[in-house]
């Protein structure tokens, strides 16, 4: 095995707490009613294509993309569309949902439900992309960016390396680990498909050292299938290794410039769960309806932790019930990892493509301590994996200095929370930097829009 690698600057080492990593994936039974959100992905929400009263089958398209960066949504069960309207999402904000009264699990035609491994990859690149798009595949690493857009870089940019992200650096989460253990061959075929789409670049699967079984399972599957140009890199355990830019730094030793995309340094990063979804879409014609989710936390015993194969549109409260109810001593429920996940304000919210966990945290683990004054120790600057100075950004935000924030690259923040984690004075650094980032992005966007308008005006003038 080659040398263990990691990203160049910053990072922290929280306890990994992967208690649920030995629990096999269980399939959740269907609930009586499911609510499918139209915002399953980054970008414009999808537009419903079904009407109230329509009969739908599992895997049938129920919503089409609402823009270039958007994705198809498919019915997670067979039944009747009961209503289409606003419903509160995870954060308590309104979003259009399609309500489906579940009557069974009859799949639409043309979908291969068998378990047989299909290793023959289609020849036509565009056909593969079309399949990925039609199956509504989005990045399952957290950002849910539509995969067909990411796999089709703008002409002129060449992908040199496809990085498959199996780092799973967030504490507690074990879903990626489980799929690498249980479906390694499918993931590798998925990676090979994406490799082909990108024009046969090299492919590296990055896995953190704290998942030795997953590394072994993946290596064995790779040896068995014998695809050329795919390798496995063992990464040192460090948070946020699973960040796109951090993984590129670790694997390729390159840094993405401020405001640049990974493709500018020849990299495309996809999560292991996305590779699995790509396999299902291309080889089995199966749309993205399911994903793996971990029910875990620091205040439940290990026998109540689960890794579930869920369908989109299942209420979180239903999943919590299936896992034995919400523990009484849980002070906070988080969807996603403890570092970057979002607190659940509404347990009636439903799962989306990118859901990765229900995390029960005790008061001791989550309660924030009162903020004190900055003592200029510089720990936040040491921890920041983007090389920013969080203490300075916090001060500039408070002073309302947007120019200063832009000069100090507040827009580069990846919101990983390392600064907040390392601050001995408990200053809510991330809260203010997130706001600052929003302000700076607004200014940058306004400037770009103004420049575009000016260029167009100049063009019109020239024609005259």
């Amino acid at each position, binding site marked *: 095995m080659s040398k263990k690698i990691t990203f160049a600057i910053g990072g922290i080492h929280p306890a990994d707490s992967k208690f649920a990593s030995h629990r096999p994936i269980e399939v959740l039974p269907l609930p009586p009613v499911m609510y499918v959100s139209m915002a399953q992905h980054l970008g414009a929400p999808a537009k419903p294509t079904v009407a109230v009263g329509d009969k739908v089958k599992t895997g049938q398209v129920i919503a089409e993309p609402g823009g270039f960066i958007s994705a198809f949504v498919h019915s997670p069960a067979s039944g009747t569309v009961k209503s289409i309207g606003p419903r*509160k999402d995870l*954060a308590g*904000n*309104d979003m259009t949902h399609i309500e489906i009264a579940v009557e069974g699990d009859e799949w639409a035609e043309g979908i291969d439900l068998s378990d047989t491994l299909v290793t023959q990859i289609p020849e036509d690149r565009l056909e593969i992309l079309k399949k990925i798009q039609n199956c509504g595949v989005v990045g399952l690493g957290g950002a849910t960016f539509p995969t067909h857009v990411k796999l089709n870089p703008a002409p002129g940019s060449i992908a040199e390396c496809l990085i498959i992200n199996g780092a799973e650096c967030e504490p507690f989460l074990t879903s990626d680990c489980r799929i690498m253990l249980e479906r390694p061959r499918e993931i590798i075929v998925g990676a090979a498909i994406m490799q082909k789409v990108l024009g046969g670049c090299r492919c590296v699967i990055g896995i953190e050292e704290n998942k030795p079984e997953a590394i072994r399972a993946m290596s064995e599957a790779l040896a068995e299938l014998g695809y050329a140009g795919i390798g496995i890199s063992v990464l040192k355990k460090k948070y946020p290794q699973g960040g796109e830019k951090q993984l590129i730094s670790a694997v390729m030793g390159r840094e993405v410039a401020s405001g640049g995309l990974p493709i500018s340094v020849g990299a495309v990063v996809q999560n292991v769960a996305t590779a699995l979804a790509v396999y299902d879409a291309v080889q089995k014609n199966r749309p993205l309806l399911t994903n793996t989710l971990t029910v875990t936390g620091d205040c439940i015993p290990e026998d109540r932790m689960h890794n579930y194969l869920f369908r989109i549109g299942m209420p979180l409260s239903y999943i919590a019930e299936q896992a034995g109810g919400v523990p009484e001593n849980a002070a906070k429920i988080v969807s996603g990892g403890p570092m970057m996940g979002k607190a659940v*304000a509404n347990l009636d919210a439903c799962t989306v493509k990118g859901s990765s966990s229900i995390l029960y945290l005790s008061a001791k683990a989550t309660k*924030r301590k009162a903020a004190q004054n900055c003592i200029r120790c510089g720990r936040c600057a040491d921890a920041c994996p983007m090389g920013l100075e969080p203490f300075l950004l916090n001060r500039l935000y408070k002073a309302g200095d947007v120019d200063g924030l832009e000069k100090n690259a507040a827009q580069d923040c990846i919101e990983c929370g390392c600064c907040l984690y390392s601050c001995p004075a408990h200053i*809510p650094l991330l*809260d*203010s930097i997130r*706001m600052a980032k929003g302000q700076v992005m607004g200014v940058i966007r306004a400037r770009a829009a103004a420049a575009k308008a000016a260029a167009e005006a100049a063009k019109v003038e020239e024609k005259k």
Partner: protein
Amino acid sequence: MTGIIIWTIAVLSGLGLLLSLLLFFVAKKFKVEEDPRIDEIEKVMPGANCGGCGFAGCRAFADAAVKAPNLDNNYCPVGGNEVMKKVAAILGYEIKEKAPQVAVVRCDGSCSHRPRTNVYDGMQSCKVKAALYSGDTGCPFGCLGCGDCVSACRFGALSMDPETGLPVVDESKCTACGACVKACPKGVIELRNKGPRGMRVYVSCVNKDKGGVARKACTVACIGCGKCAKVCEKEAISVQDNLAYIDFTKCRLCKKCVAECPTGAIHAVNFPVLPKKEVTNE
């Protein structure tokens, strides 16, 4: 010894004289011609530099007022009609008189009316809280209670009521500069006409959810039933997105809607309390 002192005084005085002459000629040569009316206007302005007029401060407003062809788009909400009359007199313009306004908090979701569904312990700022999620109650539209409006107010007219967790406007101090309106991420605060002797009728709710959902989140929410709009003779009330709104330019303060509202979301303030007729059981 005396020689040194005399020399020193002579050299320094000479130098002073020379430099003052230099300054005098430079000031003459490079004088910036400024409209003297700017200074005059600045003198009559309130001098709070609050930015309520849309300019960086009182002098910037004076500068803009002098350059503008009329005063239609320039109005100092803090000084009101009185100050604007003085400004108009200096410039020789006419002004359109505006009714005095006041900031109105359109949310009555106190802890007893609007039960808390979760606990927020992040940064105490409404802006940050609103960016994270819908808030610690079932109502995603109402006041978040972190007091961004209070810190935005330059006149000390806003304060948080510790009992209700809602901001309270001190009408005697509010100048309707609109800083709080801009600071509120939820758009809860509105500038409304002060009304005769401060009497106003308004819908104290901004919830656009359907009736049942709104009512479940808050007992005093507007449920969009439209009863108020039906009873209003002046057509001042419109219901849009399950929310009633009273147009203060049309409202004649009859208070019929207040009696009609099933949830008590319509507030009538500063009306004189009529002495109740004594009921005698004879």
